[in-house]
């Protein structure tokens, strides 16, 4: 009786939507509420709610809540947002998940996302990122900054597993969609440890090259920034050997290809690429300039210690590695037209205590002096609302299979066990 009365009240155009709602209702009450919110705009929802109340259906307290406090209900139970463009996201979307388009996933993030997140993307068949406060703050700074002034350095710091890398990826997505050139180094810690091949540098006698890491990175760089490779022209002539050289005025793509194919000189190619980009980012938009975003994850490895040893078993200092040397030059704020966004990471870092997460602890004296003045952005564990969102997302994806996890008590247990830490929560829910 109730459904037919409601459908009489609504227009015929909404009938199809309503059928979907009914089907969702058969699956479960929560599904129904979620679909209800997704399909019908607020005003109609209120109408439906009131109509249902009049007819006294068995939805009980949930819909009463809807009628009285629709705003509150919307925040707590809607965990998805349709606004997929980071530039348009605002505080209204805090705590909600937005979907990364698949094309972007492959081009922008060939190597950037954390490993567990990549597995999650594969499992769920979609990449959803939560809109959180640190990322929104960073994006607002990037929007408001003046790009004729020297590059501003931003540093994301926080407890282990609190979402620094994901916030960084969110910001990179924003930069990409705005047409910036993104230089993403996914984990700088990988460059200071476990190096299989260490070659003495041809350019500078006391330095060392890492061909494998450099060529890997160049390949990924090529995938990310395809459209810039033909537009940017080199300003200088680079000589690699007696016979090979890259002429002035040739496109950047040629340099990158050469680096990928000639693995021996790939570290020097990386250095050249960075230098060129640094010099050319300063131009304004009219003269075919571009904005440069340098995104480094695990920036504390640049000033720490390495576990790489020379042939006489003495340790290699970070500045003796070509890649690190060139990267340090990028972090200096003597260039304009972009921003440096960095993340601290204790997880891969060497010789640092596992409880350290504050900037000065992990960067050290030297690192702090190099980055200073920078804007530290704290990333904390999930708030109540964000946790709700995450929990509902996992329920929606049918990731939480254990029947007890769907009850309130189970939810309290999950909160207690994970302390609302994103990575711990993710690992915990994988078991459920």
């Amino acid at each position, binding site marked *: 009786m109730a459904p037919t009365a409601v459908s009489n009240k609504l227009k015929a155009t909404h009938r199809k939507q309503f059928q979907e709602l009914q089907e969702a209702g058969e699956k479960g009450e929560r599904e129904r509420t979620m679909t209800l919110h997704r399909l019908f705009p607020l005003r109609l929802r209120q109408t439906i709610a009131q109509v249902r109340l009049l007819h006294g259906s068995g939805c009980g307290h949930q819909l009463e809540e809807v009628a009285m406090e629709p705003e509150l209900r919307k925040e707590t139970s809607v965990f998805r947002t349709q606004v997929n463009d980071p530039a348009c996201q605002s505080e209204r979307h805090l705590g909600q998940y937005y979907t990364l388009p698949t094309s972007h996933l492959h081009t922008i993030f060939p190597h950037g996302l954390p490993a567990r997140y990549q597995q999650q993307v594969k499992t769920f068949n979609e990449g959803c990122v939560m809109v959180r406060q640190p990322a929104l703050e960073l994006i607002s700074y990037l929007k408001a900054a003046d790009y004729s*002034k020297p590059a*501003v350095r931003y540093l994301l710091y926080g407890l282990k597993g609190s979402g620094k890398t994901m916030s960084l990826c969110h910001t990179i997505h924003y930069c990409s969609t705005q047409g910036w050139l993104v230089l993403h180094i996914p984990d700088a810690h990988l460059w200071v440890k476990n190096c299989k091949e260490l070659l003495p540098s041809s350019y500078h006698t006391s330095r060392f090259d890492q061909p494998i890491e450099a060529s890997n990175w160049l390949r990924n760089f090529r995938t990310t920034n395809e459209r810039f490779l033909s537009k940017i022209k080199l300003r200088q002539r680079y000589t690699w050997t007696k016979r090979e050289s890259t002429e002035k005025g040739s496109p950047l793509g040629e340099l990158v290809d050469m680096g990928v194919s000639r693995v021996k000189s790939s570290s020097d190619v990386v250095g050249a690429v960075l230098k060129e980009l640094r010099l050319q980012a300063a131009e304004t938009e009219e003269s075919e300039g571009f904005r440069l975003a340098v995104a480094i994850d695990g920036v504390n490895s640049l000033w720490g210690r390495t576990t790489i040893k020379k042939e006489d078993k003495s340790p290699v200092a970070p500045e003796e590695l070509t890649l690190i040397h060139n990267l340090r030059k990028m972090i200096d704020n003597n260039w304009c037209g972009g921003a440096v966004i960095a993340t601290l990471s204790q997880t891969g870092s060497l010789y640092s205590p596992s409880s350290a997460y*504050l900037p*000065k*602890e992990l960067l050290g004296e030297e690192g702090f*002096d190099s980055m*200073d*003045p920078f804007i*530290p952005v*704290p990333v904390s564990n999930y708030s109540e609302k964000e946790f709700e969102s995450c929990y509902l997302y996992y329920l929606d994806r049918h990731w939480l299979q254990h029947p007890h996890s769907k009850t309130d008590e189970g939810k309290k247990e999950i909160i207690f066990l994970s302390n609302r830490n994103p990575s711990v929560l993710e690992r915990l829910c994988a078991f459920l």
Partner: protein
Amino acid sequence: MAAHTLNIYMLSLGRMHCHIYGRNVHKALNRATYATALSTNNSSPNKGFPDRGSRGPIIRRPRREEGEPRKDRMPVDQDWTAVYPTAAPFRPGSVPLPVRMGFPVKRGVPPEKKGNLELIKIPNFLHLTPTAIKKHCEAMKLFCTEWPSALDTNVKCDEHFPIKIECKDYVSAGTSIRNPSARIVNLRVKLSSLNLDDHAGKKMVKLLGERYCKETDIITIITDSCPVRQQNYDYAMYLLTVLYHESWKTEAWESEKTVADMEEYSWEDSPSQKNALSTLVRMQIAGEVEGDAVRDKLLGRPEVQEYRESVIRLMNEGESESSILQYREAVKKLLKL
């Protein structure tokens, strides 16, 4: 031999039977089969004492009955110092308290004090009640002089007598009155009461090392290298004098003091200042000439001062959420110029 074998056969038969009939049967049978024949009836007249044969019984003094324990005859207003005038072991009959000590058995309580070795083993201070100590003080007053009436507060004492010497005397019951630990002298003085300027103060702290406590600002010098207390006291005073005079002198090599040696972080001439200045200069319009005047003007700006405060706080106090947030605000103001 035959009986023996028969016995064994009976044993095995008994056992076989027990498997059929049950364990109780086995027990009964056991008793029956294993009964031995020796009887223990001894013809000794003394109960419990060993047989001395022809030597005769041990003659012991007859034991007298024990009287009422002292605790039952104690009035409430008695003089306790008469019960325990000196250090003595615990006597359960003399202490009128229902004390229990020891590990309780299962579902029981700690054993009572009568015959309790644990209470006797531990040291007790029954001879040092407040009344007893009052009596000691009264007795010692004969050997003491009056406390000066002008020194009635701690502050005045510190002001007139900043150096405090502490020595310990040891008394023990034994053949010798000597105790080598009595030679140790403990000298305490507050650093602020010494006449030292900035450089001298820092040098003094570096020279003292562990002997200086930063929270309480007290220098503690403990000397025990000489055999006699008088010598140790002289040595402690000598050390203090030498430290004082040395810290006032400035050596030639002190000019090589590096940034790592500094006790506190100073922002002037630090890399942080250089970074901030260079950033600001780059942010300015490119027409301005760089020189000392520009530098001073930049340094004088309130944002720069705020930045300087936050960096000093970060370096000196260490990191914490609040100090980092303060730094963040300062940098935001600095860069949005």
